[in-house]
């Protein structure tokens, strides 16, 4: 089990597919792992009052957000039998179709990762002080609220 100090979860801009592929590749040496599960949050081109979302610009209360991510990690490790967990979230502008959240959990067996991933993503969506500004094609915007 990984015990760690507070990490910086934030990355500037979108999370690239190459970054995600490299993260998976790095786990090939960890041969006690039998199951990975991954959540990727992608920016959706919502149509709101006739206006289409072009991108989301993320800002955060970074210090508290990293603290919250840390608490969520620790609580999840305590609750589920995981080998490791990685969380990355974008800051700044992420265009529609690009990835803004990458959660990666690994364990010996599948049940743990399915349950743990669901738990972690719900906690992130509800707890972490991150704020998405939905930017429309005409440069107007509105603040997003998680459902």
């Amino acid at each position, binding site marked *: 089990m990984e015990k760690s100090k507070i990490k910086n979860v934030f990355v500037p801009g979108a999370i690239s597919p190459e970054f995600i592929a490299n993260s998976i590749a790095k786990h090939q040496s960890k041969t006690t792992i039998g199951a990975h599960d991954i959540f990727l*949050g992608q920016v959706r081109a919502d149509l709101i009052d006739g206006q289409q979302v072009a991108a989301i610009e*993320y*800002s*955060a*209360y970074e*210090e*508290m*957000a990293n*603290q919250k991510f840390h608490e969520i990690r620790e609580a999840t490790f305590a609750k589920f039998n995981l080998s490791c967990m990685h969380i990355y*979230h974008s800051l700044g502008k992420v265009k529609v179709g690009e990835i*803004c*959240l990458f959660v990666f959990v690994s364990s010996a067996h599948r049940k743990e990762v399915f349950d743990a991933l669901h738990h972690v*993503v719900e906690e*992130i*969506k*509800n*707890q*972490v*002080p*991150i*704020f*998405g*500004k939905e930017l429309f094609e005409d440069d107007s915007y509105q*603040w*997003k*609220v*998680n459902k």
Partner: protein
Amino acid sequence: MTILLFGVTKDIIGSSTLSMPSSSEFGVKKSKTVKELKEYLGKMYPELKKLSSLAVAVNNSYANDDTIIDNFDEIALIPPVSGG
């Protein structure tokens, strides 16, 4: 006391931080609570009351209404979150 503002609260208040008057101007001499702070801000900026939620963080943790706020605490307004 300075309050950190995030998301839509920045737009409503028109700044990224808000300097608060000392506690005597709250109308209460004793230490103020999160509830009193929210009531004060709601009066000053009625748009805040229209938000679906408004949390107050004290030293990087979500605070309850009855949490006491000290001048040395780091206070932040947290509107509805939308990570992920």
